[in-house]
């Protein structure tokens, strides 16, 4: 799928996104997300795929956050939540594959239900790896495929349908993080082995060389 198709897909989804996601899913995940975003530090933070900004109320106050999203329609809905954030947050319409930040720029990168949707996920994660400082942290709140029947069957059956409207349901995101060159620190299951947080970091340069060899 081309990037313009991805942008169009999420622009179409924007007007009904909060209707579907703002109540049940966000309230259910609120405790886990508060704990997840409490890892935000004092450096430069990139938040990938702001969407309509449903995650912003879970951010700790006083952080320095750059948010990007491929969909301008999504960002229109996010603006009031960005304005209400008690900290420094800027948002931009930007595809992860088109990021123009210098290499080694961010101290931390956060994603929330993002890499179920990014086309070519390993390449997308490699783009994040590039703009993250050596030793910088990647924190992801994602849903992934399952190892177990019948959940793996269901997620595989659903993906051809759901990917037309939004996310894939059967991505091996933890493996993708490794494939993109990150060092995995921890994986924490929120619901079964499907909803999880993934914590990784970019190796220091000498560490990266050792890993590559």
């Amino acid at each position, binding site marked *: 799928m081309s990037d313009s198709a991805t942008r169009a897909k999420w622009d179409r989804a924007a007007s009904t996104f909060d*209707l579907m996601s703002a109540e049940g899913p966000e309230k259910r*995940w609120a405790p886990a997300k508060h704990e997840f975003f409490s890892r935000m530090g004092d450096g430069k933070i990139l938040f990938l795929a702001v969407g309509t900004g449903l995650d912003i109320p879970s951010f700790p106050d006083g952080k320095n956050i750059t948010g990007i999203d491929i969909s301008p329609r999504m960002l229109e809905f996010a603006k009031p939540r960005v304005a209400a954030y008690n900290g420094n947050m800027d948002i931009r319409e930007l595809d992860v594959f088109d990021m123009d930040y210098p290499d080694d720029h961010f101290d931390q990168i956060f994603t929330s239900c993002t890499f179920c949707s990014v086309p070519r996920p390993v390449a997308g994660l490699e783009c994040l790896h590039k703009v993250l400082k050596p030793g910088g942290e990647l924190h992801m709140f994602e849903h992934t495929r*399952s190892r177990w029947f019948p959940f793996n069957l269901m997620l595989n059956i659903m993906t051809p349908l759901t990917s037309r409207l939004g996310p894939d349901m059967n991505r*091996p995101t933890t493996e993708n993080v490794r494939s993109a060159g990150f060092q995995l620190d*921890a*994986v924490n299951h929120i619901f079964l082995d499907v909803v*999880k947080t993934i914590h990784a970091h970019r190796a220091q340069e000498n560490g990266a060389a050792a890993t590559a060899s």
Partner: protein
Amino acid sequence: MEQRIYFLLGDLTANISTGALAAAVCAWLLSDLPMWLSMPVSMLIGMAIGMVLLYALFLRLFGAMEPMLQTMTTGMFAGMLAVMYVPHGGSELWRAAMMGSHVGIVVFVLIWLLNAAISGPQTMGRE
């Protein structure tokens, strides 16, 4: 691991109603078909009913992945068991619905136990 009463009761309600509806529909539509055909078709119909109920109602109330995986599992097994054990179609729909609701309770309990066993920090990278 989920311990909030609202979401636990929500999951249970979603499972019971999905199981009852999936079993009744599958018994009504498929019980006259040969078993080799009715079983796989009923599993697909049961999953589809679970998905429709999720998007129509449960997603907005109780969450996304959690009710989805539970109701689709319930629908799949309730539909399959309905065509196996409720063979006389229309006259037995109430019986099928009761059986489907029991399947929903069993699925709710099993998934809660499975989730209790595997939630939390993991051996890294296994999925």
